[in-house]
């Protein structure tokens, strides 16, 4: 546990929600940095642990895309909701879910945030405002739109941050959801995490026509492109969109240009993109390195401070792993619980 309570589940771990308005203070820069780095360190370890067999099935790492969810959550307010695809570990962490619970879920343990039953792709934490973790490409988009419907129905002032991939944009249910969100002016931000590929298919091979940001134009949904590798650009674009949405302006689309540094999942031939392309993105366009450079340049932090953060986060992740490894699997009787509400004694 670091001095600032970094491992407390669900609070303190990530910045206060709604902080992302105005120019970021030095302190906020540090929090953004820390939040991104937590995801990075967590995912690196998850990848390693996968190799040992302690994590199974599909596991989609978020490395490279950290600025997107951290920038989104920087502008979220308490009571807002978030959904995303199966590539969800970073989102859970950014929502403030305890890394222990996420790692334990990855290992299929009783202490996991889905009690070990969901695994990498199916994590939930309603208290943290995170409504999954959806394994079916595009399915979270109507679901997120429904969360927005609920916000509006209740008049709770909340909105839904609904993340989807560039591949998901070609799912018909996404178009249907866009149309209804616009028709009913629902409070939802569609954040396209455009990492250029859906599995091995580049955006150009999957999508005809205009820019992704314009996919909502037919429905009257404003959209714009965002440098998704610059957490401050993300934060600024999201802040603006969120303000418009909260003011009753209806849905918004942000096309976040990002990149995944790793394969689609743990088995990926990577034949669809060149080593050079990946290497260049890693060296020139790493969202964490970019923020680090800026912070150092502005004097918001020094090398020692960076090192301290990194050390603390590594400790958090190590602790999460230790916790998960030490956690028991679900008891066999759990096989039959949670199918229905009454199944739980």
């Amino acid at each position: 546990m670091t001095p600032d309570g970094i491992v407390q589940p669900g609070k303190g771990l990530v910045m206060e929600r709604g902080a992302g308005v105005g120019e970021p203070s030095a302190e906020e820069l540090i929090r953004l940095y820390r939040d991104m780095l937590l995801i990075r360190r967590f995912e690196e370890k998850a990848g390693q642990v996968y190799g040992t067999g302690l994590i199974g099935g599909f596991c989609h790492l978020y490395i490279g895309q950290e600025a997107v969810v951290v920038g989104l959550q920087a502008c979220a307010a308490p009571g807002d909701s978030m959904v995303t695809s199966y590539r969800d570990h970073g989102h859970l962490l950014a929502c403030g879910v305890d890394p222990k619970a996420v790692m334990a879920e990855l290992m299929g343990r009783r202490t996991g945030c889905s009690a070990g039953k969901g695994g990498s792709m199916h994590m939930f934490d309603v208290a943290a405002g995170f409504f999954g973790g959806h394994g079916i490409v595009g399915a979270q988009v109507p679901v997120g739109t429904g969360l927005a419907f609920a916000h509006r129905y209740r008049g709770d002032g909340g909105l839904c941050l609904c993340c989807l991939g560039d591949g998901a944009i070609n799912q018909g249910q996404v178009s249907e959801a866009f149309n209804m969100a616009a028709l009913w002016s629902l409070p939802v931000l569609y954040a396209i995490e455009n990492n250029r590929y859906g599995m091995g298919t580049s955006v150009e091979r999957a999508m005809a026509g205009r820019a992704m940001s314009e996919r909502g134009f037919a429905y009257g949904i404003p959209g714009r492109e965002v440098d998704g590798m610059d957490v401050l650009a993300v934060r600024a674009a999201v802040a603006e969109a969120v303000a418009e949405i909260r003011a009753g302006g209806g849905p918004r689309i942000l096309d976040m240009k990002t990149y995944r540094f790793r394969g689609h999942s743990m088995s990926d031939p990577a034949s669809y993109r060149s080593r050079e392309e990946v290497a260049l993105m890693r060296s020139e366009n790493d969202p964490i390195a970019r923020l680090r450079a800026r912070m150092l340049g502005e004097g918001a932090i020094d090398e020692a401070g960076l090192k301290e953060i990194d050390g603390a986060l590594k400790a958090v992740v190590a602790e999460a792993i230790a916790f998960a490894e030490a956690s028991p699997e679900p008891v066999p009787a759990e096989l039959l619980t949670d199918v229905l509400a009454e199944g739980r004694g």
Partner: protein
Amino acid sequence: MEQVRQTVREALRDAMAEEMRRDPGVFLMGEEVGQYQGAYKVSQGLLDEFGPRRVVDTPISEIGFTGIGVGAAFGGLRPIVEFMSFNFSMQAIDQVINSAAKTRYMSGGRIGCPIVFRGPNGAAARVAAQHSQCFASWYAHCPGLKVVAPWSAADAKGLLKAAIRDPDPVIFLENELLYGRSFDVPDDPDFLLPIGKAVIERPGRDVTIVAFSRMVDVALDAAGILLRDDGIDAEVINLRTLRPLDVPTLVASVTRTNRLVSVEEGWPTAGVGAEIAALMMEHAFDALDAPVLRVTGADVPLPYAANLEKLAIPQPDDVVAAVRSVCHRA
């Protein structure tokens, strides 16, 4: 209890209206449910009473609005999603199964999905193959769902109210041909029927006939013929719920009658009747004096021609023949 005479259509509407009055989180969404008053007039008057916030007309976007319903349920509301017919639920079935039915389990119980999917199921009159499929067996197959199929207006009222109050996703299979039929219904805003319980509509000693939805009529008609023509006293069970099936009631009945015929209008293969036959094997093998027989819809997409349509859907005579077969056998 005081009874009122009403149609299945009215019973369904009253069930929704009462639950909407009772719980502000309950709302209805679907195609033509509002301004049009429902394609089959089931939601007549609801828009007037509850307004467009709670009676939501949608575009023809089944998977989209189903997913929106699921999200709204995750978000704490209690949506009633109307499919203009269950045939169109096929477009949305990924959201029904993968999002609504599986999420409680996948989340280790952290999140539930209290939602009702309702609408007419199975054959209507002459609407042919794409508008006549019975989805009873598909939905009954899937854990995480409850599947209800009312017959009478009282069934409709008591079960729909229970479904709306249920914390889990409920598939509520209505039947267009029953909408206009009248039955007695208890006059009580708290009249609920338990999901998961079958009811004996007609007690009998000689054979058990199991049916659901409109096929209860067919079974009762067959029972009448059997008594009159053969002196066979058939017990008719209205399943009411298809998932979970009320196995104790079925076993108790067959333990008395030693014979069972199931009737459904859906296709035979891996249908509800197949499940009942398998259950009787497992739970009542020694009680059976004859094989469980299935009367089902013909194993074809429903034809349009009037004569073929009639041949494709179980008629009382088909049930009579099956019962005679199991009764003459022992």
